[in-house]
C-alpha cells in the first residue's frame, strides 16, 4: 500500500486530505508541523509528503530544506500544498526540492493529477 504523510497544522485540512487519499488506497499518517514530520521521517519513508507552508514550530520550507539535506534519509516525493500562491513562493519551493505544488483550495481531481505527475498513482 502506498503511504502519504500529511503535514499541516489545520486539523480540518488533514481530515479532508486524509479522506481523499484513503479513497485512493493510501495509508495515511499525519504531522501537525515540520518538526513532527522530520521525526516521522526518521523512522519511516512515506512515498509522498503533502506539505503545508505556514506552520508553528517548523515551517514547511524549513522542513523541506532539512529533509532534502539529510543525506541518510531516503527521499519521498514532496508536494507543497499551501495558500501561498505567488510565483515567488512556488519557485522557492521548487528550488528547495519540492516535486509539485498545489495551491489551496484544491479538490480530489487536482490532488489525484498531482500524485500521478510525481509517480505516486
Amino acid at each position, binding site marked *: 500500500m502506498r503511504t502519504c504523510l500529511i503535514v499541516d497544522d489545520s486539523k480540518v485540512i488533514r481530515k479532508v486530505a486524509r479522506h481523499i487519499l484513503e479513497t485512493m488506497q493510501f495509508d495515511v499518517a499525519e504531522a501537525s508541523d515540520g518538526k513532527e514530520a522530520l521525526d516521522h521521517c526518521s523512522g519511516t519513508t512515506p512515498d509522498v509528503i503533502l506539505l503545508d507552508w505556514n506552520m508553528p514550530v517548523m515551517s514547511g520550507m524549513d522542513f523541506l530544506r532539512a529533509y532534502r539535506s539529510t543525506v541518510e534519509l531516503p527521499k519521498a516525493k514532496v508536494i507543497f500544498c499551501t495558500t501561498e500562491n505567488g*510565483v515567488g513562493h512556488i519557485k522557492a519551493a521548487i528550488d528547495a526540492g519540492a516535486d*509539485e505544488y498545489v495551491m489551496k483550495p484544491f*479538490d480530489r*481531481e487536482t490532488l489525484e493529477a*498531482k500524485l500521478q505527475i510525481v509517480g505516486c498513482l
Partner: protein
Amino acid sequence: MVQSQAYTSLSNLLEKHTGQTLMANRHWRIDMALKPLMRENSIPDLDTLISLIDIDADPKLTSACVEAMVNNETCFFRDQANFALLTGPVLDMLREQRMGTKKLRIWSAACSTGQEPYSLAMAFNENAEKWRGWNIQIFATDVSSSALAQARAGRYSQFEIQRGLPVMQMLRYFDQSGEDWIAKENLRRAVTFTEHNMLNPAPHFGKFDVVLCRNMLMYLGEKRRTQVLDAIGTRMADDGILMLGAAETVIGQTQDFRASQEFRGFYEPVSRAASHLNAAHRIFG
C-alpha cells in the same frame, strides 16, 4: 428543483443546438448552470426563461442558455496515461510516416476552454529539438463562444490552472495575473481556435493527421455520435489517427473507423475501398 417539464424543454434545447443530452443524473446541472444567467437577465424562474426562449424573444438569450448548459469539463493533460501515449509512441509513429513532408496537422475537436490543445502545444515544445523544422498546426474548435473566448485568451483561474498541469510547465508557459494565470504569447500562437458545432459538416481546414475528440461523444445520442464520427472521418488523412475519451469507442457507432491494433484508445480510418467492401458484404451477405 427543476420541474420535469422544464427539464424536458431545456434538455431538448441543448440537444437541438449541440447534440448533447442531459442524462437524468445530471439534472442538477441545469439548476446550477442557469442561475447566473437568470440573475443577470432578471428572469424570475425557469418557466419564464423557457417562455422567452420559446417565443425567441432574444436569440442571444437562447444562445447564452445553451452555452450555460454545455458541459465544459476539461483539464490539462487529461487522462495522463493516454495523453502520454499520444505525445509519445503515436506521434513518434506519425513522425516517421511524415518525415518526407515534415508537416503535421492536429484537430482538437470540442476543445472547451483550450486546455487540451495547449497541452499538445506544450508537449511539442518540450520536445522542440525532435520537431525542429516541422510545420505543426494545431486547430481547436468548440461550439461554445464563451469557452473559446477563454481559450483564445489563455486565461485560467487558480483552480483550473493546476488541474493536470505540472508546476514546472505552469511556470514555464503561464504568467500570473492576479488570481489568474495567462498563457504566454508563444503558447497562444501555437493554437488556432475556431467556433464549430460538431453536428455541422467538419470545417474545411484540409485533412488532419490527428483528431482528438475526447469526452464529447459520451454526451450524445446514438445517431448524433454516428453523425459526428462520420463528419470527422471526412477530415482525416487515410493514415491519420483518432483519439477518443477513455469511456468512448467507435465500435457499433460507425463503419468509418476501427480500433488501432497498436494503441489502445486510438482509432484508424477504414479506407474508402474497405468501407465499400464492408457495404457489399452487408448487402450481399
